[in-house]
């Protein structure tokens, strides 16, 4: 079955926007419900059955609020920052292979494109903090930049490892290489790199840090730093930042699924398809929520030390060991 190109494009644009919007809205619900369960309380229960209409109530509340530009702020950049954070997050979805034939654009450098777009995220948060003319926002955006620079390095080193193992930056090809049952997944590809599970753990930790998630949520630190870089944002301006955070989590977990867990491949070798991708994706997202409600926020020095003293050397070791295995065998 082939669909004319304009219709295919339009349906993907609408589909991706709907997917991001729904995920952002309902991951907030998952987060709150999960927080409740981890702390032995019921979580949201009031709006709709099991609080399922809560995201809609939140969205209506945010949208009815005025978007205030603080006096003295750089109005253009202040308004541009939410756009700049949301657009790249959405653009990343165009190259993610949801299913065997369900990819918006199957380009050869999909992996590179995701990381190129992902790094805009930092600039958007920095712009948001900087343009709002608020010292707390500026301090917090400086933290975001140093945190993201520190974690970009081990993250890219793990990706270099994956590129060496797979020999392709095309996400669909990477998934196809992992066909068959779960022992063909890159996570268990110990023949190519004996440190593969370590590589995944580093990737996951860096993903948490890149998306500013707890325990690395120094950008917001809502209990200490007002709302960090988003202090001056009101209404949907803040809402968009919030949505972008969840969109980035979805992108990060999708990428982990594709790189390490065989994407849409079935773990038992039957019925490969989009549901396996979604199942793995949401299990990883659940792990993100699980980590958030398990560990307290790290100290900022601890965060940078972890990256520079542990993650970078270990990820370098994985690169070297992969190279050695490739050269020897």
């Amino acid at each position, binding site marked *: 079955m082939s669909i004319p190109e304009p219709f295919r494009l339009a349906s993907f644009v609408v589909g991706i926007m709907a997917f991001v919007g729904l995920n952002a809205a309902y991951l907030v619900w998952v987060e709150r419900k999960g927080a409740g*369960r981890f702390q032995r309380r019921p979580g949201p229960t009031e709006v709709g059955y099991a609080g399922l209409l809560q995201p809609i109530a939140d969205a209506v509340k945010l949208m009815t609020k005025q978007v205030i530009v603080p006096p003295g702020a750089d109005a253009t950049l202040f308004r541009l920052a939410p756009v700049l954070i949301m657009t790249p997050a959405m653009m990343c979805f165009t190259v993610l292979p949801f299913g065997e034939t369900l990819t918006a654009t199957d380009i050869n450098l999909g992996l590179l494109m995701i990381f190129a777009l992902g790094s805009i995220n930092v600039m958007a948060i920095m712009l948001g903090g900087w343009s709002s003319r608020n010292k707390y926002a500026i301090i917090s955006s400086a933290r975001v930049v140093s945190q993201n620079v520190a974690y970009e390095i081990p993250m890219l080193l793990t990706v270099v490892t994956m590129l060496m193992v797979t020999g392709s930056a095309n996400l669909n090809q990477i998934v196809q290489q992992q066909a068959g049952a779960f022992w063909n997944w890159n996570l268990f590809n110990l023949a190519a790199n004996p440190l593969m599970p370590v590589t995944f753990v580093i990737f996951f930790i860096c993903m948490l840090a890149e998306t500013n998630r707890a325990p690395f949520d120094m950008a917001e630190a809502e209990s200490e730093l007002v709302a960090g870089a988003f202090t001056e944002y009101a209404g949907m301006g803040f809402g968009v930042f919030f949505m972008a955070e969840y969109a980035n989590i979805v992108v990060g977990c999708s990428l982990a699924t594709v790189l390490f867990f065989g994407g849409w491949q079935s773990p038992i070798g039957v019925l490969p398809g989009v549901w396996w991708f979604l199942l793995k994706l949401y299990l990883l997202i659940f792990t993100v929520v*699980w980590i958030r409600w398990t560990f307290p926020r790290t100290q900022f020095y601890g965060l940078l030390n972890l990256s520079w003293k542990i993650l970078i050397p270990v990820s370098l070791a994985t690169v070297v060991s992969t190279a050695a295995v490739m050269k020897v065998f």
Partner: protein
Amino acid sequence: MKKNALKEIVTGFASLLTGMRITLAQFFKPPVTVNYPRQSLKMPARYRGHITFVRDQETGKSLCIACKSCQKACPSDCIVVEGVKREGEKRKSVTDFKLDFTKCSLCGSCVEVCPVDALEFSKHYNLASTNKEKFVVIDLVKDLEKRGK
């Protein structure tokens, strides 16, 4: 770099996993909280709400004999008691028992001093009003009648 840095990384990571195992175990247990406005816990026996009459199980009336001991014992002067001697009854019976809850400090002297154990602490804790008058005069006689119905 410390000598046993590698060991530290491994044990540190293991302890993180232990933490995650503990929280996941909590995740599957039922909630321990009470959904407050819809459910509430039974107040403990020694909880002190404002004082109230003990209801006589047989007659449904108060045991109070209007002796005014409580009125005298009250350090804050927040109790006013009136009673009459009815024909054919041995004791006086209470007609009026007013408590000024805005002054009461819940010291319990009235409960302690009562010779016929006619007073007890109620378990009311959801007292809230926009009107002070509601607490300046709490009529225990009416309160008892209301409970009888």
